[in-house]
């Protein structure tokens, strides 16, 4: 894949994922009906729980819980689990796999792999005589894989059941300043406007470039495109600012708050809080 195709694919991926999330957030599923504040609190609370749990069985139980919630929220289970599995395989399993060996994590060898004539020592690195997978190392790999899978699963659950602006507005509860939230909202809008611009620029470039192009020319083209995007975004910012001033903007930003929680949201929030606490407790027994 050329740099042009790769850039177009990246940009198209951003635009597509935003539309998919917008569409799934509007479905009539269990999680979509909840107040965004409950979902944001749920996300933060559960991700912290995932990071605190030290039992593989408890992590597996939480993975099952996430799967059930994703399914009853009428999300595309196959699509989401492909992403979760990809993240967990690469960032959890693959990266951590070498640490399962006693060269990195000493411990009880459960699967011998090789035996050297003698042990070696290279500066601060020690290579034992017998090399193999250790129980402690395998536990670490499994724990990291499940942690990554559960965290990504929880994030995708909330991202796909809540419009992005509602997630941002809900962050007010966590004392994130309105000014900072407004910067994120504006930036998000600019990103989609300019993603399209970048996509069009690259499609135009693709249609004009025929045959091989040397690296220096390509790098010059990319630098020019980045400069152009900066100038375009700068112009857009000036226009946005003038439009904001024209509508009475003085620099003070107060985002509208949320209405009071409904009974359903309070009940759901309490139920989720209890489920989370239960995971923390049961990890000591399973």
């Amino acid at each position: 894949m050329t740099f042009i195709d790769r850039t177009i694919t990246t940009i198209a991926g951003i635009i597509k994922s935003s539309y998919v999330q917008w569409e799934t957030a509007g479905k009539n599923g269990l999680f979509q009906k909840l107040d965004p504040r409950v979902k944001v609190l749920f996300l933060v609370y559960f991700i912290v729980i995932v990071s605190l749990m030290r039992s593989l069985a408890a992590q597996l139980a939480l993975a099952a819980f996430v799967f059930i919630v994703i399914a009853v929220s009428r999300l595309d289970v196959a699509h989401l689990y492909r992403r979760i599995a990809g993240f967990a395989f690469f960032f959890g399993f693959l990266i951590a796999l070498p640490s399962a060996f006693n060269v990195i994590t000493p411990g009880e060898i459960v699967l011998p792999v090789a035996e050297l004539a003698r042990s070696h020592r290279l500066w601060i690195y020690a290579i034992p005589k017998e090399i193999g997978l250790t129980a402690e190392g395998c536990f670490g790999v499994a724990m990291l894989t499940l942690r990554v899978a559960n965290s990504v699963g929880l994030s995708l659950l909330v991202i796909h059941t809540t419009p992005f602006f509602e997630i941002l507005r809900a962050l007010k509860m966590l004392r994130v300043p309105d000014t900072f939230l407004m910067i994120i909202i504006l930036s998000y809008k600019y990103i989609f406007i300019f993603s399209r611009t970048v996509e069009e620029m690259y499609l135009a470039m693709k249609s004009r470039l025929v045959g091989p192009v040397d690296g220096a020319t390509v790098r010059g083209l990319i630098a020019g495109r980045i400069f152009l995007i900066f100038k375009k975004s700068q112009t857009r910012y000036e226009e946005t600012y003038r439009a904001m001033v024209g509508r009475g903007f003085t620099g003070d930003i107060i985002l509208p708050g949320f209405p009071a929680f409904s009974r359903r949201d309070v009940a759901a929030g309490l139920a989720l809080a209890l489920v989370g606490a239960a995971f923390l407790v049961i990890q000591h027994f399973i």
Partner: protein
Amino acid sequence: MHIPDGYLSPQTYVPLYAVFAGFIAVALKKVRQNLSAKNVPYLGMAAAFSFLIMMFNVPIPGATTGHAVGAAIVALVLGPWPAVVAVSVALIIQAFLFGDGGITAIGANCFNMAVVMPFTAILVFRLVRGKAAAGWRVSLAAFLSGYLSLVVAAVVTAIEFGIQPLIASADGKPLYAPYGLEIAVPAMAIEHMLLFGVIEGLVTMLVLMYFARNDRDGVYALQEAKR
């Protein structure tokens, strides 16, 4: 460079959230002093620019492509404090919208890429450029500011990984990032010194040179020479 959830223990990600919160508060205050009411749309634009730089794939030897983090060029063009806000916002959007980088690791990711990178980039640029206003020395300064800022950020990230077995393991079992400092630091440093740092340096230099030719007055780092 984007740390996912699960790699850092609470003993690491909670303090890094606090450190990042301190930096972002100072950054917002500094930018507000200079830009007043304009700061919100300006920083929104800067954050979008920071996000979009990561979308530009650059061909690299080996018939593959790579992209820059962009924090160094954002810092050189806009200044370090706007860069702190801009890169942080881009990283937060990536975490919440695309799942790139963990929610618990937002503080760490923002500290590494939105604080360490911009300030290292500016410092290296000032040191290498000296009093030169143009020419090879400015190009070299731009390249090294991108290159070294990414390598330093990678080493800081590696230290965050590498301390996990020391501060958060149970009976010899790793609970978070499993590699100690003796493995995490050289692994991260070498790959960033040999590959990713070169891409970051190259993109920073090319874009800064383009800015220097076409909009010199709009570049923070080049204006500094006049002050």
